[in-house]
């Protein structure tokens, strides 16, 4: 009611809205609302409230709940209101119920009956509001209760009802596909409904269905194409036009569906080429919705079987998108670029400058989209620039969610494309430094594996170079005074540092054991409260001293280090204690013994683990014969088992059951930092205390595991490893066979190849830099462009000719022939597109140029005039914006508004500028209507609502 600008509410409600509008703080607002709730609570229980009054209470409750307060006491009244005969009240009831309740609410059962009745109503408006409620309130269990009625409505005479019935069925399908699986054919049937609106509605469920099962809908390709053709040829009634586009939303959905159906299907795609091509040609690129359809066309082209002709056409559209000043279009341009890049990698190169503009744009959304694009087009040649940019951006944002994402992208890319190990290690350091607390621990493991394995094969010198480089860089990191703050959260980093220093710290002889161990101790001290870090450090120390002993040097342990171990040996943590004892034992052993338990450089050897522990079989048999209980798996045990003979410090503190879990949990964490092979030897052979407890538990818990004989080497050493594994130190070293999958070995190979390539290309780089300096347009940008796009050709060339390695980016190889010529020209040829046309035809061009400039200045003049306050008094002047002077309309109308309610005019002007593009094609159907606004103003003032300083623009016309 009251479509003429009246407000069908009482003074009370208006007062409420007004007072809330004028509050200065949240607490004040809360107070007002709580008072309101109290009032309604009281009133709503009064007997014989007129229903009209009740309706308002319910609207007020909805309002209250929107502001975040609980209005659940009124839910039941909303449900009752939905029962009402009066349409107005019924609709209000339904509205409130759909906003208040969720599908699992207890009150739903009360509303189902009403819905059932209303679905059968003669009044189609009642049916519509019931369908609306169905969408929201019916859950899986109650679907059957209303399903027959909804299906019946598919044949309703009113198209609005048919449409809503289709969408309701779709909603059912989304909620629980099985309940409507027998009705899916209805969606197909409705595709041929007389009413285009109903047909359009059926596209939504069909899209969902096709996403899941493409094959069974292939037969519809021809129908979809013919529908799209008809729509595009404006065969639909005029009422489906939107901004001069025929039914754009239907077109968009159809294109999406075609994209799905044509994916990888040459035959189906072939049928689509014509209609999609036509659409691209005819689409009106000046309106927002036209661009939406264009975008969908490109999306479709990118997903169907590629056609060179269409791809060319799309390239033009993309160029238009990217060159546009409108950020939305740029965004869309970048998005489609990302989709096309797989099909034709050179598409991006045509737009390199535009892409870089987007990368440097202030708009975060656009920036992120561009990073997404860069991620897709990363190659070994441009990885350095891209990662550099990404990390810079990563450090500049606070958005935790996105930080994780971009960090993992950085890691992924640098593992895949690293040009050299120096770069890789430095990059990882940077990533850890800025995002050490959020990167996956696996990243650290991969890094360690890479350092340990090196490049494999016959590159021993390169490997040791890599290692000593790693050691050096980590020592640098550790030595920096800011370590504790920057790396405080970077567990992964600390783990890597400790492991590398322990393993390779003294390997190249550049640093003495005491220097390294001093650093390690510093690390342990810096994290005095963290057991995990201490464990990393102490194991690393153990290794260093072990290697010292092995190499026959005299061991010289400073007293403070000794005291560290003493301290840890008395630690409350069993894990630290054990490590300290291990250390103590190791340092007192003979060199050859140490060598056999701590062999150097075996950290990458695969360790065969037979989890069935076959070597225990005989022991188990024997025990069973002696009357021992057979093993019962943990989950079958009742909880109390006799493990009282296990006694160590921890067990005294906690219950027996808890102890069990503790042992598992704790042991897992520190494992990665140490090579498990030697450790296992220590723990089982040499250290008396823990060994005892472990072996007892072994006997208790695992005696009767079925045995399978292994192929593993039958030495004693390896078997003991197995035990160690079993007891919970398996994470890193046992994982290599399974988890190594993706990165390290290919990465290392590639990076080696690349390092050679990058070395050889240095001189060229310099040459190119010189060249670039001559170019006048934004040299840094050009440089960036070249490093992102241009370099690709060069480095592909080098890798292509020298190493015929099997690379992931084979696509670029065929291209290398084309761009082989040289790099510098590639840079140059890409700049001139704007000046170029001038050279072609001087006469024509100048005329055109004059024409455009004159138009421009005219328009500017017009804008100025209006803006200077000479806004004419003819408020009903009709400006047809489709003529082309979009700018004038909003400016013009805005002045009126500002004249009457004094908003900060600069701000509103900005708004208008922002709007100009998207509003461009809206007809200026109504002039700025001063009279209307004044009437409204007077009306509310009469009611006592005055716009205050709080919200001076309350009357501001939204559409300007």
């Amino acid at each position, binding site marked *: *009611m*009251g*479509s003429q*600008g009246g407000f*069908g509410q009482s003074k009370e409600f208006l007062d409420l809205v007004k007072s809330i509008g004028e509050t200065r703080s949240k607490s004040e607002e809360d107070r007002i609302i709580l008072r309101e709730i109290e009032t309604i609570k009281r009133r709503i229980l009064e007997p014989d409230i*007129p*229903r009209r009054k009740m309706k308002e209470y319910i609207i007020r409750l*909805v309002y209250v709940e*929107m*502001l*975040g307060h609980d209005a659940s006491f009124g839910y039941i009244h909303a449900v009752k209101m939905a029962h009402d005969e009066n*349409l*107005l009240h019924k*609709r*209000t009831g339904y*509205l409130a119920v759909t*906003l208040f309740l969720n*599908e699992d609410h207890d009150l739903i059962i009360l509303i189902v009956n009403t819905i059932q009745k209303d679905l059968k109503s003669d009044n189609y408006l009642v049916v519509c509001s019931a369908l*609306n409620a169905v969408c929201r309130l019916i859950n899986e269990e109650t679907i059957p209760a209303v399903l027959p009625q909804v299906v019946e409505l598919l044949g309703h005479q009113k198209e609005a009802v048919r449409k809503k019935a289709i*969408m309701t069925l*779709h909603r059912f399908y989304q909620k629980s596909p099985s309940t409507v699986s027998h009705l899916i054919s209805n969606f197909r049937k409705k595709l041929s409904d007389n009413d285009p609106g109903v047909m359009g509605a059926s596209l939504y469920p069909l*899209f*969902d269905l096709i996403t899941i099962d493409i094959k069974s809908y292939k037969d519809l390709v021809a129908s979809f194409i013919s529908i799209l053709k008809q729509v595009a040829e404006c065969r639909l009634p005029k*009422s489906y*036009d*939107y*901004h001069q586009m025929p039914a*754009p*939303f239907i077109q968009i959905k159809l294109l*999406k569906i075609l994209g799905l159906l044509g994916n990888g299907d040459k035959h189906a795609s072939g049928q689509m080429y014509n209609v999609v091509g036509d659409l691209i040609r005819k689409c009106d690129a000046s309106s*927002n*919705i036209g*661009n*939406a359809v264009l*975008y969908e066309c490109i999306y479709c082209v990118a997903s169907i079987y590629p056609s060179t002709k269409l791809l060319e056409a799309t390239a033009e559209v993309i160029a238009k998108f990217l060159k546009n000043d409108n*950020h*939305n279009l740029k*965004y*869309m341009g970048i998005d489609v670029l990302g989709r096309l890049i797989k099909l034709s990698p050179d598409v991006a190169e045509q737009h390199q400058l535009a892409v870089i503009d987007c990368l440097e744009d202030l708009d*975060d*959304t656009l920036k992120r989209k561009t990073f997404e694009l860069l991620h897709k087009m990363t190659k070994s040649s441009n990885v350095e620039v891209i990662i550099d940019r990404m990390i810079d951006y990563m450090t500049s944002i606070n*958005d935790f*969610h996105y930080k994780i994402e971009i960090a993992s992208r950085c890691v992924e890319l640098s593992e895949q494309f690293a040009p050299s190990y120096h770069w890789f290690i430095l990059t990882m350091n940077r990533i850890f430094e800025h995002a050490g607390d959020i990167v996956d621990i696996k990243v650290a493991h991969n890094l360690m594996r890479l350092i340990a394995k090196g490049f494999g094969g016959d590159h021993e010198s390169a490997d040791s170079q890599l290692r000593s480089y790693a050691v050096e860089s980590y020592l640098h990191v550790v030595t920096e005074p800011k370590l504790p703050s920057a790396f405080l959260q970077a567990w992964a980093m600390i783990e890597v540092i400790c492991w590398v220093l322990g393993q390779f710290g003294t390997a190249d002889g550049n640093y003495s054991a005491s220097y390294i161990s001093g650093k390690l101790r510093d690390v342990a001290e810096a994290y005095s409260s963290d057991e995990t870090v201490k464990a990393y450090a102490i194991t690393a120390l153990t290794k260093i001293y072990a290697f010292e002993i092995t190499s026959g040097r005299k061991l010289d342990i400073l007293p403070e280090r000794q005291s560290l171990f003493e301290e840890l040996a008395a630690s409350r943590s069993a894990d630290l204690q054990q490590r300290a004892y291990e250390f103590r034992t190791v340092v007192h052993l003979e060199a050859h013994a140490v060598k056999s338990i701590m062999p150097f450089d075996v950290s990458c050897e695969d360790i065969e683990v037979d989890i069935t522990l076959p070597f225990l079989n005989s022991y188990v048999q024997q025990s069973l014969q002696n009357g021992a209980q057979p093993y019962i798996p943990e989950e079958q045990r009742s909880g109390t088992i006799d493990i009282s003979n296990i006694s160590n410090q921890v067990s005294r503190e906690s219950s027996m059951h808890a102890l069990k879990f503790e042992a598992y949990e704790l042991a897992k964490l520190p494992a990665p930092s140490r090579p498990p092979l030697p450790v296992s030897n220590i723990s089982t052979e040499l250290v008396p205390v823990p060994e005892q407890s472990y072996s007892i538990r072994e006997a208790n818990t695992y005696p009767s595991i079925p045995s399978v004989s292994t192929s593993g080497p039958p030495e004693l050493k390896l078997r003991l490893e197995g035990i160690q594994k079993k007891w919970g130190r398996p994470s890193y070293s046992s994982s290599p066979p399974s988890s190594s999958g993706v990165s390290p070995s290919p990465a290392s190979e590639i990076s080696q190849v690349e390092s050679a390539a990058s070395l050889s290309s240095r001189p060229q780089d310099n040459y190119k830099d010189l060249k670039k300096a001559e170019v006048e347009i934004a040299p840094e940008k050009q440089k960036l462009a070249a490093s992102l796009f241009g370099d690709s050709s060069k480095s592909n060339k080098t890798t292509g000719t020298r190493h015929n390695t099997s690379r992931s980016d084979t696509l670029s190889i065929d291209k290398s022939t084309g761009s082989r010529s040289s790099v510098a020209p590639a840079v140059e040829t890409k700049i001139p597109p704007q000046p170029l046309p001038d050279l072609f035809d001087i006469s024509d061009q100048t005329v055109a140029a004059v024409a455009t400039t004159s138009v421009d200045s005219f328009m500017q003049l017009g804008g100025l005039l209006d803006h200077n306050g000479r806004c004419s008094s003819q408020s009903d002047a009709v400006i047809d914006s489709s003529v082309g002077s979009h700018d004038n309309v909003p400016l013009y109308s805005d002045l009126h508004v500002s004249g009457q309610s004094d908003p900060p005019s600069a701000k*509103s002007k*900005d*708004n208008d500028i*922002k709007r100009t593009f998207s509003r461009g094609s*809206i007809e200026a159907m*109504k002039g*700025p209507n001063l009279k*209307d*606004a004044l009437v409204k103003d007077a009306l509310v003032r009469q009611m006592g609502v005055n*716009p205050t300083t709080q*919200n001076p*623009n*309350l*009357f501001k*016309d*939204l*559409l300007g």
Partner: protein
Amino acid sequence: MIRAVIVMNTQGKPRLAKFYDYQPVEKQQELIRSVFAALSNRAENVSNFMEAESIFGPDSRLVYKHYATLYFVFVFDSSENELAMLDLIQVFVETLDKCFRNVCELDIVFNYSKMQSVLDEIIFGGQVLETSSVEVMKAIEEISKLEAASNAISLIPYASGWSRR
């Protein structure tokens, strides 16, 4: 599918919030707050799209448009087209404009239920139902007529006379 429609003013006060997947009241408030925080950080003259996965979870996008004192925000998933959603906001606002003649924030504040009806005619259960503001207006007027008629029958003369013209 469209997940949510939020209208709020430039001070962060919600004027309309409709979630097509049920969200409890507290969660709604939290979402509205974080959307507002994100929106108010956006510069002028940037795109109308925004990263929304950190607020609404995976596969969610957000398009917003700023009109005078109001933000109109649509949240949806990858099955919709961003530019098209931007135009849907335009359809919504144009329809409101036709409905209230030069719509302003005040109209929206005081005609909460009417705004809901308009929205229900445009978006139905998270899907786009109608994109022609003329058609939406027809539906709305039909409802108004019927409502008025049914009101007249059960009439109580305490006419909201001052608001009628």
